């Protein structure tokens, strides 16, 4: 079925970005256009969300696994080969579309309050809409080429937004870091696409055509394609080894962090793997590798998060950890659980970031959790919603995270990947610990001297009520995919129509596993409680006496390691180029040639000395030479 609505959904935020960018650049700075920016900046995503709901509703009335296509125009047509600019809403992109537009809209609304006093209000919303549009382009693209364009534009938008406070050099560095690391991943991604393009001999390059032609491709080459595509996902979704940009990306304004971590950008990698699920289903070894990377990233990030003091960095590592879960899911072939965790995570992570942003604003841009404390009674709305999000991410029953995370762990156990399951459980414990560490230290623990003395900045209403919407989502979303063990029907997974692997557990086993997970989570909470609430004396920032503690607090010096291993050798190589190869060898050889020509010319010029007798002698010698030649070569023959 065809419809023009999907194209409109993609174009709306771009249009908003264009209008606001134009106004920001060309309207004199003296005029206050913020109300206009709010109207356009929120209007575009809200309208997109509304249209998204309409399209998804339309799609649901169609017979099973039908999709709504929206061809815009033919982009490349070489003979019978065609690449169209076309958008498609199927079950997978419908979920992503709803998550991105709904949560994106809420974050936009929240950002109005957060950014109201900023000089670059219009610029911020132009970038924000652009970010959303890029993500929608990525999601709704019906061929990998268009997906890649969205993929790149998302990278560009994140670069612009991370470096939004561009007066501080550190922020520029963080933006550059994010951009460069994403380029590394994108190189893998585009190589994978190129290889796939060469391997398949269909006339089209849209997803349907690619997947129908997969059977004719050699399995080894297919594995290579899968690996290269996953390298792109590593960069975009911040997995080992390309994750180091994510914590630094906290340099941007907090709504940006919320948008990057919840709705856009980092989820792109998971979405891409799920989108290519027919491909990944043929190469289970690569899938296992993906799951392994996901498990390792989840564990490493959870360890880092447990030792951070910056509220946003804790949440950043927590995102990386949760993305690890999603990659475990999609790697092991339970794509719909991965996407479901993505959706649930989008709700509670957006909520966590927005709550953190509210705390940061209220405390005059303080980000160290050990300088907060006792905020529970002073920011009750933020405290309550943050508690919901924290419980959701911890995986306490009835909250969204419980169903989404336990489904992943149960599947890992059921399919026999017990190592990954064990890592997942350890991560669940650490998650409970570090999230409640954050919650207890910020809201419950006795307040610190500094935070108590200064009055809080009052929060605008637009920064508070989106929290409640998201809290409701974090609370109730889990029931959408209620497992059969609890009397549900995993409606979400059925609706997705993804090529999931099947692995069944008996209900009893599932109860035991889930119970175990809850127990582990409660243990983490108890540990955080004992450490940060019980002590009567005021909390001090942790002092790291042991070597491994300070190593973890410094994220195992991995940034330093990358600096030594990659950045410095590269810089050394560039210096070598700059000092030796370019000036000496390349320029030198050219200069040498010039000197040679000049020398030869100078020597030849000396022949022309104006002396008549000299000319006569030269003449004589030349004629003699020619005569001699004629005599020997020609005269000798006769």
């Amino acid at each position: 079925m065809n419809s023009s609505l999907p194209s409109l959904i993609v174009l709306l935020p771009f249009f908003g970005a264009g209008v606001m960018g134009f106004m920001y650049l060309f309207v004199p700075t003296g005029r206050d256009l913020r109300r206009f920016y709010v109207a356009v900046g929120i209007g575009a995503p809200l309208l997109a969300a509304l249209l998204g709901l309409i399209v998804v509703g339309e799609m649901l009335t169609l017979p099973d696994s039908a999709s709504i296509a929206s061809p815009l125009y033919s982009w490349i047509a070489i003979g019978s080969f065609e690449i169209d600019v076309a958008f498609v809403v199927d079950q997978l992109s419908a979920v992503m579309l709803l998550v991105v537009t709904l949560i994106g809209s809420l974050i936009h609304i929240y950002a109005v309050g957060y950014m109201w006093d900023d000089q670059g209000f219009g610029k911020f919303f132009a970038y924000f809409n652009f970010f959303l549009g890029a993500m929608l382009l990525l999601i709704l693209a019906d061929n990998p080429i268009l997906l890649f364009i969205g993929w790149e534009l998302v990278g560009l938008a994140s670069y612009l937004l991370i470096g939004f406070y561009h007066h501080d050099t550190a922020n520029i560095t963080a933006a550059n870091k994010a951009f460069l690391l994403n380029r590394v991943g994108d190189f893998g991604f585009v190589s994978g696409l190129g290889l796939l393009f060469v391997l398949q001999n269909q006339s089209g390059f849209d997803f349907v055509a690619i997947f129908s032609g997969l059977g004719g491709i050699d399995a080894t080459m297919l594995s290579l394609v899968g690996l290269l595509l996953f390298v792109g996902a590593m960069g975009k979704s911040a997995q080992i080894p390309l994750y180091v940009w994510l914590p630094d990306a906290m340099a941007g304004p907090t709504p940006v962090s919320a948008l990057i971590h919840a709705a856009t950008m980092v989820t792109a990698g998971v979405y891409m793997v799920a989108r290519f699920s027919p491909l990944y289903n043929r190469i289970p070894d690569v899938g296992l590798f993906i799951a392994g990377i996901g498990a390792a990233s989840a564990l490493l990030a959870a360890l880092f998060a447990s030792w951070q003091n910056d509220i946003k960095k804790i949440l950043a590592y927590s995102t990386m950890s949760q993305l690890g879960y999603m990659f475990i899911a999609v790697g092991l072939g339970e794509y719909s659980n991965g996407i479901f965790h993505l959706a649930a995570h989008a709700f509670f992570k957006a909520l966590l970031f927005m709550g953190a942003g509210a705390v940061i604003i209220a405390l005059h841009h303080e980000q160290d959790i050990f300088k907060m404390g006792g905020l529970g009674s002073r920011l009750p709305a933020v405290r309550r919603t943050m508690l919901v999000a924290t419980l959701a991410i911890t995986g306490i029953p009835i909250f969204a995270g419980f169903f989404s995370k336990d489904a992943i762990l149960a599947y890992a156990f059921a399919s026999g990947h017990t190592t990954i399951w064990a890592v997942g459980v350890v991560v669940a414990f650490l998650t409970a610990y570090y999230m409640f560490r954050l919650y207890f230290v910020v809201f419950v623990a006795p307040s610190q001297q500094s935070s108590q003395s200064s009055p809080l900045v009052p929060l605008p209403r637009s920064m508070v009520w989106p929290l409640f919407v998201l809290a409701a989502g974090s609370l109730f979303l889990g029931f959408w995919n209620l497992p059969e063990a609890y009397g549900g029907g995993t409606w979400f997974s059925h609706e997705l129509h993804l090529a999931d692997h099947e692995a069944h557990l008996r209900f009893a086993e599932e109860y035991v596993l889930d119970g175990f997970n809850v127990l582990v989570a409660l243990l983490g909470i108890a540990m955080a409680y004992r450490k940060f609430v019980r002590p009567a004396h005021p909390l001090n920032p942790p002092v790291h006496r042991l070597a491994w503690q300070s190593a973890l607090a410094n994220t195992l010096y991995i940034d330093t390691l990358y600096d030594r291993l990659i950045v410095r050798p590269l810089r050394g190589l560039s210096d070598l180029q700059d000092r030796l190869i370019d000036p000496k060898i390349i320029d030198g050889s050219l200069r040498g040639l010039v000197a040679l020509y000049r020398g030869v010319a100078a020597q030849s010029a000396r022949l022309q000395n104006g002396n008549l007798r000299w000319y006569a002698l030269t003449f004589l010698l030349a004629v003699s030479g020619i005569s001699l030649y004629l005599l020997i070569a020609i005269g000798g023959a006769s």
Partner: protein
Amino acid sequence: MTVNPDAYFAVATLLFSLGILGVISRRNLLVIYLSIELMLNAVNLILATFSRLHPDEGGTMIALFMIGVIAAEASLFLAVIVQIYRKKHTLDSDAFTELAQGKKL
């Protein structure tokens, strides 16, 4: 009275070599001119000799024709030498190096 043609060739070669030697070694323009004439006449001699060796009068005709041309050329050459002398009041060929590389006219 027949003379061995080799003698004619020997004389012609001698004359030509003298001419070359004169052009290269002498500096006076008049002497250089004389030497050029010497070479021309050496060639004339060879042409006439060959003409006799082969029963073909073409060579003699060319030689006679050339003597006429040389006479005309002599008048031009002498006029040029007079003009050159008026420029610098010398006939030394080494004095005229205006066309050398790097010299301003």
